[in-house]
């Protein structure tokens, strides 16, 4: 029961900022409301037995990506009087497409049967995750490491060029 | 030596091309000499071919009708449900291709001399030229449809550039037009080729005997090696637009080759291409490339679809007749000497259609002879037109008058070749026309009036040639631009060197046509008989 209530609360925390982002034209506000949304999402993750993921969400998204975006905004701010206000375009087209997608996907989802069957969790999930990183997901782990290296090298090189 | 003689003839210029490719840019004269040598070797080899050809061979089937046969597996591919696909390097000649090859090598040799004055990008020119010579000869020798098609396509691009780069002021237009027309024609041929290869079976070279082997061998196609239910197998009742599929295929081939030939009404690329092409290329265009259309009729359209050919003699003959008369009439309306000659080619190529349509030995022999003779005559005519163009940069018939005064020798040659082209007996042009008329009027398949109307072609051709002669060469000496009067000198030694052999050949063939028709007579007879027998066989199915 509590879980349900918490779920609804966190859902609200997630959805409300998203709706605000949809409406607002202010970029900086949108970025910060995105942080709130992520907060709600990590709450949901906790409810879904994914504490590790909730932490990651908070650390990387709220702590990393959002900050990165804010920095980006600062560095590319055009003019003061224009501020962080942006415009909407293809409003009708965009809403139509996304709305229709939502409707049709929802209709399909309602007919679908997902593979849900409760299983008993054994042991510490976080420890399990750590183990998985180095066993089943060792390849992915190494690949993502290399990927980050690539991103690092490339992005820094590009950024260096922009500084020149 | 004779084992690989054909291959040598075909690929020798290509070998030389590689040599030329690595020569430095400046050595124009050397390149010309090399090209001359290469085509000269080709010519000598083809003369050897001519004399070692066994004229007495009397084949019973197409499979033993060819000499100097070389065959090697090229591409062999397993296509699952379809069995094996087999492409061979398969060359060989019978009388028909023998003559065509000899004609080609001769004209290619002449063409090199004709382009001796060239100074713009000599290396590129001769590389293209040599590639062209390989593909032309290869086309005439190929007995594998795929190989034929490859050579056929291969011709397109060198020609495109030879016209497009070294041509006259409207070369871009002409080359594109040439390219597009020929390409469209070749697409028709491609479609039929694929249909044919799906419908035939040929196990002669295959290791796998338990599977169906589809091969592109023309010989097998001509001998009727069809599988039971192929799309183009005789007796297949598939209809399209109310016509049997074989008929459709034949018509597609006819259209494809008629564009190359060219026959009215798909001839309009020819005048433009001729007018814009440089002299030597005009010579080749008229002398060889058109003949590939005619050769295609012989070897492919008639050889493989005799049943359709027999049934469609009437329209083919009518198109031939229209080409003869209409081409002549349009030639008369031209103001450009080269254009006139080009249209006269259209007219003369009509004889090939008419001769083939008559479906007898005389007609076929006439068509073949016409191809050879037109090769020489039109070659010479384009060289002559090129002479004036060299001197003045103009070819307008109305821009000159009385050239006989300043250029008597030139005029003499013009008279000889004009008369040869208008079919004066004693010169080679007459023989082909005579045989074609003999065939057309004696044909069991054609009504007389087609032949009779076509005979008016000889009057029309006389009309435009003599009119041009009168306007350009007779009368008081006059040129539109005063400057030209000074540049009007008579033939140079090089031009004489070009024209005298051609003139000798034209006279020789006119007096004694049997020196070339004799050796190939068996082939022509066999061609006609085989077409006839097979058509009866196929039609019965």
């Amino acid at each position, binding site marked *: 029961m509590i879980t349900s209530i918490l779920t609804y609360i966190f859902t609200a925390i997630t959805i409300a900022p998203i709706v605000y982002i949809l409406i607002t034209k202010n970029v900086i506000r949108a970025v910060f409301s995105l942080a709130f949304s992520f907060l709600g999402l990590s709450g949901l993750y906790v409810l879904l037995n994914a504490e590790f993921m909730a932490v990651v969400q908070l650390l990387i998204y709220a702590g990393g990506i959002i900050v990165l975006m804010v920095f980006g905004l600062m560095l590319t701010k055009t003019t003061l009087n224009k501020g962080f206000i942006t415009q909407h375009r*293809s409003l009708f*087209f*965009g809403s139509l*497409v*996304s709305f*229709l*997608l939502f409707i*049709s996907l929802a*209709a399909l989802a309602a007919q679908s049967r997902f593979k849900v069957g409760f299983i008993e969790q054994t042991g510490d999930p976080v420890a399990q995750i750590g183990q998985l990183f180095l066993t089943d997901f060792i390849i992915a782990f190494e690949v993502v490491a290399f990927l980050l290296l690539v991103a690092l090298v490339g992005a820094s090189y590009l950024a260096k060029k922009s500084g020149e | 030596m004779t084992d690989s003689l054909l291959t040598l003839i075909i690929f020798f210029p290509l070998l030389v091309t590689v040599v030329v490719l690595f020569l430095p840019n400046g050595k124009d004269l050397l390149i010309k000499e090399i090209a001359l040598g290469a085509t000269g070797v080709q010519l000598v080899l083809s003369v050897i071919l001519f004399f070692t050809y066994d004229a007495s061979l009397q084949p019973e089937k197409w499979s033993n009708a060819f000499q100097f046969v070389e065959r090697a597996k090229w591409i062999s591919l397993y296509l699952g449900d379809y069995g094996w696909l087999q492409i061979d390097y398969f060359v060989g000649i019978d009388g028909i291709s023998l003559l065509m090859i000899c004609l080609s090598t001769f004209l290619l040799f002449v063409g090199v001399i004709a382009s001796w004055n060239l100074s713009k990008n000599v290396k590129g020119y001769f590389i293209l030229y040599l590639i062209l010579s390989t593909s032309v000869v290869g086309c005439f020798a190929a007995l594998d449809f795929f190989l034929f098609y490859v050579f056929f396509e291969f011709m397109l691009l060198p020609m495109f550039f030879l016209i497009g780069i070294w041509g006259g002021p*409207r070369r*871009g*237009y002409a080359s*594109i037009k040439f390219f*597009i*027309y020929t390409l*469209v024609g070749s697409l028709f041929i491609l479609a039929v080729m694929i249909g044919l290869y799906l419908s035939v079976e040929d196990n002669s070279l295959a290791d796998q005997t338990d599977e169906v082997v589809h091969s592109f061998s023309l010989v097998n196609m001509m001998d009727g090696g069809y599988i039971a239910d192929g799309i183009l197998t005789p007796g297949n009742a598939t209809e399209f637009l109310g016509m049997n599929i074989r008929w459709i295929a034949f018509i597609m081939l006819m259209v494809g080759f008629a564009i190359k030939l060219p026959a*009215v*009404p798909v*001839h*309009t690329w020819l005048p433009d291409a001729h007018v814009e092409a440089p002299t030597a290329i005009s010579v080749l265009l008229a002398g060889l490339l058109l003949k590939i259309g005619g050769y295609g009729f012989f070897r492919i359209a008639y050889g493989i679809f005799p049943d359709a050919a027999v049934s469609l003699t009437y329209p083919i003959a009518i198109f031939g007749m229209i080409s003869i008369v*209409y081409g002549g*009439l*349009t030639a*008369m*309306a031209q103001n450009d000497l080269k254009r006139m000659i080009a*249209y006269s080619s259209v007219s003369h190529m009509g004889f090939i259609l008419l001769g083939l349509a008559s479906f007898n*030995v*005389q007609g076929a022999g006439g068509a073949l002879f016409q191809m050879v003779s037109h090769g020489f005559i039109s070659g010479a005519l384009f060289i002559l037109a090129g002479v004036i163009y060299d001197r003045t940069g103009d070819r307008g018939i109305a821009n000159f008058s*009385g050239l*006989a*005064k300043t250029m008597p020798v030139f005029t003499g040659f013009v008279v000889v070749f004009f008369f040869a082209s208008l079919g*004066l*007996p*004693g010169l080679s042009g*007459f023989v082909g026309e*005579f*045989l074609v*008329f*003999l065939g057309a*009027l*004696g044909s069991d398949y054609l009504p007389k009036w087609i*032949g*009779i109307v076509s*005979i*008016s072609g*000889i*009057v029309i051709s*006389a*009309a435009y040639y*003599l009119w041009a002669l*009168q306007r350009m*060469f*007779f*009368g*008081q*000496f006059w040129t539109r631009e005063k400057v030209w009067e000074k540049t009007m000198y008579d033939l140079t030694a090089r031009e004489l060197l070009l024209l005298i052999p051609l003139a000798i050949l034209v006279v020789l063939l006119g007096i*004694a046509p*049997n020196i070339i*028709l*004799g050796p190939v007579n068996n082939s022509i007879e066999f061609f006609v008989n085989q077409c006839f027998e097979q058509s009866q066989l196929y039609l019965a199915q």
Partner: protein
Amino acid sequence: MTLLKTIWPLIFIIPLFSGIIGGLNHRQSLKLSSFGIAFGLFLTLILVWVLDEPLILEWKWLESVKFGFSIDRLNALLVLLVYLITLLVQVFSITYMEHDPDQGRYTAKLGFFAFSMIGLLMSNQLVTLFLFWELVGMSSYLLIGFWYQEAGRSKAARQAFMINRVADAFLLLGVIQVFNNGYATSFTETLASGIQWDGFTGICFIIGAFGKSAQFPFYGWLTKAMAGPTPVSALIHAATMVTAGVYLLVRISPALMEWNLQVIAIGGAVTAFMAAVAALTQFDIKKVLAYSTISQLGYMILGIGVGAYQASVFHLWTHAFFKAGLFLAAGSVIHYMHELDTTKDPQDMRNMGGLQKILPVTFYAFLICGLALSGLPFLSGFLSKEGILTGSWLWGQSTGNYLVPILAFCTAGLTAFYIGRQILLVFFGETSFAKKMLEPLVTIQAPLIFLAASSLWFWNAINPIDPLGWFWNGYLFADLAATSDQHSILGVLIGSIVLTLSGLGVAYWLFRPEAEMARGFKKSNEPVQLAGKISFHGWYIEKFYDQIVWLFSKVVFGAGWFDKKIIDRFVDGVGVTGVVIAKVIGWFDQNVVDGLVNFMASISQLIGRFVTSFQSPKIQIQIGWLLLTLLVLLLWFQYLT
């Protein structure tokens, strides 16, 4: 036989050689080649002498077509004639062409002509005949257009050749018919087989022969042929080439059907009459002779048609002499007219008159030959014409068709009249040229004298009124003499003499020097009344040709236009290719390079623009399209599964 086989090729080839040799040597070419021709003449005499059995030579030309010659008495004699006239003409030309820088070319062409003509006469196979037939036509073309720098002459040459070519096409058709119908393909075999050809084939041959022999409706070319040098006219367009048609018909007449022969007879008669009428009013000295030639050829053709081909051959023979004589004489007149006064047209009879005193030898030669033409007794022309008239009369009697004999007789009278007129107008009356000139060199005189002399009867027959008494008759037609009996009939004899005399008389009455018409002649113009106009314009045959040519040219330019505007565009307009070319035509002239881009753009205008319209440069629109497509796919799935 061995002798024959040795000299035959020589006879055949000598003219060609003498032509080539003559052609190489510029100044002396005519003289040199004359020796060659003389040698050939000598050989031909031997040939005629020794020839007994026909000699047939054949070899394979094509697999199914033979090439062959035969030499029998008829063509041996005609070859002799060709040699003889050629020699005379060459000798005559030595002076006539003295100042022409192109003498060498002239000689070469003459030699080439003689070669072709001899080949024609010797041909046995029809294909061979056609070959030389065309070569003769070509050499005639070259000789008519000898003075190519004068546009009118080269044009006349072309027209003459074209008219011939039309007829030749029919001849070719006839030859092909013979092949395809399985008839014998040589004269000797045709004669031996006795098979009759079908009428169509016969008509084709007849048209061919009519063309070469300048019969209606082809006779117009002969007047145009007068543009050539006058000796050439004498040789080709009077004595030899034009008789080729006659010769051909003589050869094939056994194979022709009855109605074919009627066509020949009527055609010949009509031509004879028409040409005689046309000759009445001409001003040009050569034109009179040209029409006269046409008329006489009509006689010969007529003779064949009525079955009197012996007489036709005889007339061919005699006509060759006196007409050549007339032409050479006219040539002499023209030559001296030209030397006397270069400003006036040397061929116009209105500028002449009284030349009798200035050119006495020419005058007498012309007189004798002219009277021979008119058919006065004791001259050769009378004899041969008598034979034809008799034949036509007998034919008229047997068929009941008197049109032919009536026309023939009328022509006889008209002939006498126009030649009388010509003689009177040219040689009698006052001369405007004061000085008297000696007639020059032997080269001019000798041929004239020879030809005039040979126009007397006794060279041909002892009996001056019996055409079958021709010396060569027995030689040529020994086997036929018994079957046909065409000795002259008294009525015909008297009738023709009366007509001739009255024709001459009327001519004298009208054109005697003191007569009104003779005096007014010098200032006369083209006739204005209808009959005169018809005559003067040669029955408007040239107008007729012009109409045809006009029509033809319309067709030609129509075709040219059609090709450029319709076919090119139509073909181009079919399919994708077409659009390409059509666009190319539009753009290329301005900008060759952009054309390619442009026409591609136009092909793909609809599709291409549609396609790339998705390719908005705006990234979000692109994403939108992507998502929209996915949406469509989803919906598709939703509804279809």
